[in-house]
């Protein structure tokens, strides 16, 4: 195994890390912070992907000269669409379930079926494909023999930006302060004057919007079909739970750990072995640390 392969493998791990992180960020907010188990989270990603597809179609037909940068509009639209959808969803549906986590799980599972069928009826059962801008296709070759795919580099960069934005919003903004307060003690937050209803709706919407961004970005790597969301949902949950609910840093570390081990195992064994090993490892870890690997030290009051 040459040094070139080692470098490319390390890069693969890094890339998978950003993908898992992007996937899990929205869920970390919705599930980790709000405690809402949204089984339709994957379908929100699919929504982002379909919006990206529509934006691509629009540019292809009306603004072919701007095809090179459509992806930025697409990511924004995907975020906006899922944000709004998430907001409406929270107000009309999720908020009735705050004290019944297990029921939320079932109801949102039903929602995911409805959404899948909606996509199927609207976009057809076939895969839809989104064109990749020419500056994002191909690979960067710093030295001969090492090719680093440009679209993956783009995703790594974007994830960093998104991660930073989420960090700033949560820890440096008023909204973030409210969210963290509500997370820790909902009734007390209301009793200090925080409009918890609005915080809930906005938080859920932001989490959904992040799913939309993830879905939009994944069109560069994979396929979009009505069932796409199902591929992501369990992985996302595993990343969040493994990292320790209510810790974004934990989510990031857990995504990193899972990604690196998965790519390494995949290289030396097979994809199936990698997947099973990771799943079993996570389950065993959760047995020893049910609060997650990186749960915060200060326990709730």
């Amino acid at each position, binding site marked *: 195994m040459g040094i070139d392969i080692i470098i490319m493998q390390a890069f693969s791990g890094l890339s998978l890390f950003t993908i898992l992180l992007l996937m899990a960020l929205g869920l970390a907010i919705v599930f980790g912070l709000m*405690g809402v*188990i949204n*089984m339709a989270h994957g379908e929100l990603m699919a929504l982002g992907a379909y919006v990206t597809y529509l934006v691509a179609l629009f540019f292809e037909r009306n603004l072919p000269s701007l095809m090179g940068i459509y992806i930025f509009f697409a990511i924004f639209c995907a975020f906006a669409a899922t944000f709004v959808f998430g907001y409406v969803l929270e107000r009309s*549906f999720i908020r*009735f*379930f705050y004290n*019944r*986590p*297990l*029921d939320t*799980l*079932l*109801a949102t*599972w*039903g*929602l*995911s*079926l*409805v*959404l*899948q*069928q*909606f996509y*199927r*009826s609207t976009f057809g059962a076939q895969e839809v494909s989104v064109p990749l801008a020419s500056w994002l296709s191909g690979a960067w070759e710093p030295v001969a023999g090492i090719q680093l795919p440009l679209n993956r580099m783009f995703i790594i960069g974007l994830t960093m930006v998104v991660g930073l934005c989420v960090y700033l919003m949560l820890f440096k903004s008023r909204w973030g302060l409210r969210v963290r307060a509500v997370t820790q003690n909902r009734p007390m937050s209301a009793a200090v004057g925080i409009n918890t209803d609005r915080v809930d709706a906005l938080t859920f919407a932001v989490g959904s919007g992040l799913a939309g961004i993830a879905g939009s970005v994944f069109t560069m790597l994979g396929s979009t079909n009505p069932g796409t969301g*199902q591929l992501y949902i*369990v992985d996302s*949950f*595993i990343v969040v*739970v493994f990292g320790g609910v209510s810790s974004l840093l934990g989510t990031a570390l857990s995504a990193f750990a899972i990604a690196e081990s998965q790519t390494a195992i995949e290289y030396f064994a*097979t994809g*199936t*072995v990698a*997947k*099973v090993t990771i*799943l*079993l490892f*996570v*389950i065993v870890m*959760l*047995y020893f640390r*049910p609060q997650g690997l990186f749960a915060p030290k200060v326990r709730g009051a």
Partner: protein
Amino acid sequence: MKDLRTASEISTYILLAVLLLVILPLGLDAYRLNIVSKYLALAFVAIGIVLTWGYGGILSLGQGIFFGIGGYLMAMFLKLEASAPELPDFMVWSSVEALPAWWVPYHSFAFTIVSILILPAVLSFIFSYAIFRKRVSGVYFAIVTLSLALTLATILTGAQGQTGGFNGITDFNTLMGIDIISDESKFVLYVIQVLMLFAVGALVSLMIRSRFGKVLIAIRDREDRVRFSGYDTAMFKAFAFMVAAVLSSIGGALYTLQVGLIAPSVVGVMSSVEMVIYAAVGGRLSVPGAIVGSLLVGFARSYLSEYFPESWLFFLGGLFIVVVMVIPNGLSDLVDRLLARIAALWPAARKAERSMAQ
């Protein structure tokens, strides 16, 4: 109120018995009856879910695991019988030269039956007792079991030479030399299955009414309080979970017999979650409700997908949402409330009558 629930449960059993043993066999074609028996196999799982979720507050999204264990073990026996003395066909294609060691005991029917009952019991008890000892909460338990279901499905799909992979195990026609494809034997199986279902249902109903059931309910409502009173709550929960696992396994074995195949998709995440909805529709607090729920969802699935092949998922998804939002305790609760209202009217009505007479 409690007597009323018992009364309504007993009358549901009687109605179900009439439906399953008289009306359906007379009214349905043999192939339709076979489809009913598919739902009834799932009803075993639903009864287990009533016990764990409804009364124990433990939601498992991995009942497919135990359903799969039962189903696969039964399929292994049937497949060995079908292909003896050769290797099962999928092993031949996957270049497996000799029968894997863990397959060998499944030449024996007795061993198969025993392991269908014992294996899930042992696995589920060890697993859940360990988890419950850690005081893992409901949501975590749901997600851990969901991941386990995914893991099992991945292993089954991946280990093709040993499990038949994605296609699963199919293509067997006899059980101990008896043809199981013919309508007659399917009918006999059906009757056996219905009787087993009633036996199991009665058993679980009794469990719920026993001291065990009372402690379980107390644990569901205030676990710490029960723990402080000196009970090993983890033991109670694990026991309930074990009973549910064995029921699922029995259901899986019957499913394999009735449907004639078992595959990872029957074991995985999707079907595991769907099993919960059977219990939810019927009422998570009612054992006969679980049977009714399985039948209703099954029928809805079959008929809607026949007449609305493109939009029936809307109905299925909508059903999840409506049940959870509008009738969280399911149909049986709706019926109970209705009965309670009628019962409340009854003495009042009689009193009114009497006063009129005076």
